[in-house]
């Protein structure tokens, strides 16, 4: 009995000393090199491609398109993960020095990716950014330097069930302000339908869906507790409170909200242009409107879509950037741009290709104005957007949970901004 405490104490002291030593030393830097030129390298046999479309499985159109873009003598291995997981995996991979050759990254994450030293410049990776619309290229330009290139963009719009609206006596063309929208939803609900589906899930997706109402009220991302911001929160909170929107909006993502709309019971759905072709093939007739702003007119929608970037490499940077250059060129050059965007369900980031898309497929017609007028999320805040988005997400959750209670909505926004 007398031996064990002594041994235990010495073991404890040894562990404590170990930890104290480790705690006081600064962690070793693991810096991948930020140099390298695509023009100096050659393509390698194995190319790693990461994208955030896990729903596009092996053998799908997008998968086949990507793999067909492998240069002569190379094969592409494609891995998919949801947006934030992909960003985290990229962070770890760059830190370890085995980043993939190409990553497709959500546009609001671009400034943070650049400031964390995760991506190479477009010049280094020999990526052509000419012809891309300024508002869509915006998130990828940091300190005047371009990083990566967007394939295309999607936009948010207001889908509506044509028959339900006709039955309720609502003229879609009259929905040009919040009051008109609320009146329309009220009429649909009175006629026996349900109101509107949208996504209020925590994270960037819920914020993406909220921004048209936020900007439509005249609010600014620099101050998320302003009266205009609170009024946008009150709008969606009232929908839950009056039973016009499903309570599951608190946890639904855009895909789940779309599935609810497809049941045919809801009059409206706030969702994205990537469902445009699915809407054309649905069992009932679906129309689409631009999202109205509070006072009247079209609300600005956030720029959707992702950037194709070349991550920073620790070794053989020249060859990896050459891989990136080849594959991205194959996906965005000339006619390929149209095929890529049609496969993804996006409108091209280049005006001429967009015009060709609209001509070829009239389903894109209502979306062009929204895409061209779309506002970048990171334009004003840069890398600080991620933090503000997180606060706004908390505010949205608080507002939806409040289910119409005005005081609770106001305090939810104030509390989120204060943090």
């Amino acid at each position, binding site marked *: 009995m007398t031996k064990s405490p002594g041994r235990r104490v010495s073991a404890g002291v040894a562990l404590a000393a170990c930890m104290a030593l480790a705690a006081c030393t600064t*962690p070793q830097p693991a810096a991948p090199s930020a140099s390298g030129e695509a023009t100096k390298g050659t393509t390698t046999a194995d190319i790693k491609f990461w994208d955030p479309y896990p729903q596009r499985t092996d053998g799908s159109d997008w998968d086949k398109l990507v793999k067909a873009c492998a240069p002569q003598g190379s094969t592409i291995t494609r891995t998919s993960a949801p947006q934030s997981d992909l960003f985290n995996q990229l962070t770890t991979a760059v830190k370890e020095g085995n980043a993939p050759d190409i990553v497709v990254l959500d546009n609001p994450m671009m400034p943070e990716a650049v400031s*964390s030293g*995760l991506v190479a410049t477009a010049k280094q990776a020999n990526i052509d950014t000419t012809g891309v619309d300024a508002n869509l290229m915006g998130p990828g330009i940091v300190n005047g330097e371009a990083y990566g290139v967007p394939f295309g963009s999607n936009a948010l719009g207001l889908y509506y069930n044509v028959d339900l609206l006709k039955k309720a006596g609502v003229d879609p063309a009259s929905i040009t302000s919040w009051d008109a929208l609320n009146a329309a939803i009220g009429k649909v609900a009175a006629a026996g339908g349900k109101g509107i589906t949208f996504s209020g899930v*925590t994270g960037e997706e819920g914020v993406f869906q909220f921004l048209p109402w936020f900007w439509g009220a005249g609010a600014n991302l620099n101050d998320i507790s302003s009266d205009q911001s609170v009024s946008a929160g009150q709008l969606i909170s009232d929908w839950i409170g009056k039973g016009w929107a499903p*309570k599951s909006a608190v946890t639904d993502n855009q895909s789940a909200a779309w599935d609810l709309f497809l049941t045919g019971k809801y009059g409206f759905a706030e969702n994205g242009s990537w469902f445009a072709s699915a809407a054309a093939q649905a069992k009932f007739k679906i129309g689409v409107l631009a999202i109205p702003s509070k006072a009247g007119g079209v609300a600005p929608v956030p720029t959707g879509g992702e950037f194709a970037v070349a991550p920073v490499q620790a070794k053989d940077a020249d060859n990896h950037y050459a891989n990136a250059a080849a594959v991205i060129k194959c996906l965005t050059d000339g006619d390929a741009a149209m095929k890529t965007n049609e496969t993804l369900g996006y409108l091209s980031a280049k005006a001429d290709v967009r015009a060709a898309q609209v001509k070829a497929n009239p389903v894109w017609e209502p979306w062009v104005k929204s895409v061209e007028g779309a506002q970048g999320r990171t334009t004003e805040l840069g890398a600080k957007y991620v933090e503000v*988005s*997180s606060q706004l997400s908390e505010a949205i959750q608080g507002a939806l*949970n409040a289910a119409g209670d005005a005081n609770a909505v106001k305090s939810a926004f104030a509390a989120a901004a204060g943090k």
Partner: protein
Amino acid sequence: MTTPVSSAETGHSPSAVTQRPRRRRSPKWVAIAFVAPLLVYLLVLYAYPLVENVTMSLHRFDRGSFVRGGAPFVGLDIYREVVSDPRFWRVVSQTATFTVVSILFQYVIGLALAVFFHGGQFRLSAALRGMFLVPWLLPVIVSGTVWQWMMNPDSGVLNSFLGVFGIDPVWWLNADNALMSVTIANIWLGIPFNLVILYSGLQNVPTDLYEAASLDGASSWQQFWRITMPLLRPVSVITVLLGLVYTLKVVDIIWIMTTGAGSSQTLATWSYGMAFGKGASTVIRYSQASAVGTILLLVALAFGVVYLVMQRRRED
């Protein structure tokens, strides 16, 4: 002439004295060789991550310094920030509520079922006992998703059931009710574990004690309270303490049902969300996540020490 000294007087034979030093050295090296793999395993898989975790909580990391290194040492600043965060004490109380209520109901219901099954072997009792194990056997992703589906406020089965009795539908998964909802699901998950262990504990209680007690005129409630419970104490202590340490760390059931939103945020889910930028915290906060993780570790360690002390006291 020397008288032969008997071995008994000296205590050791001369040959033994010369042999002993040689025998002492080789067992020591053999012993070290046996222990070495275990030591390496413990160092790599336990000590290293633990030290890294504590280190991370003492330096201010962001995504950039995580990739490139050079995070500044800030001592206990991160801990001060975390503890003074207005959310901290709310999350701690939610964790405590979740853990205590879960364990309490899991134990009581598990014990009640164990006593019920122990009371008599009726037809299909083995099958029924097997069915009670289903929550334990199902993957948590399945049970979590099913509970979330059942608790859907507009069209869920639970609200329909309440409607039969004329009770208003409950918004199960909103911010205020989330804690109650995940606790209910967690209790359902933990009952089989308690049932199995307490049932086997009950098997070890000698039946002649009950016979003697009923001869003395003890009621079944008195028998339960005075015979079963005291004899079940060691098993109960293990079950409750194991359950406590496990429940403190639970992330999966809460995450699947609510992603730690609202009142269902516990120290474990908060740390997980901040470490990976998921759920309510879309920004990755490396240092704060490590700090909360370390605090959770200390709490679990405290309970572990309590268990060791109780074990020691029983041995004495």
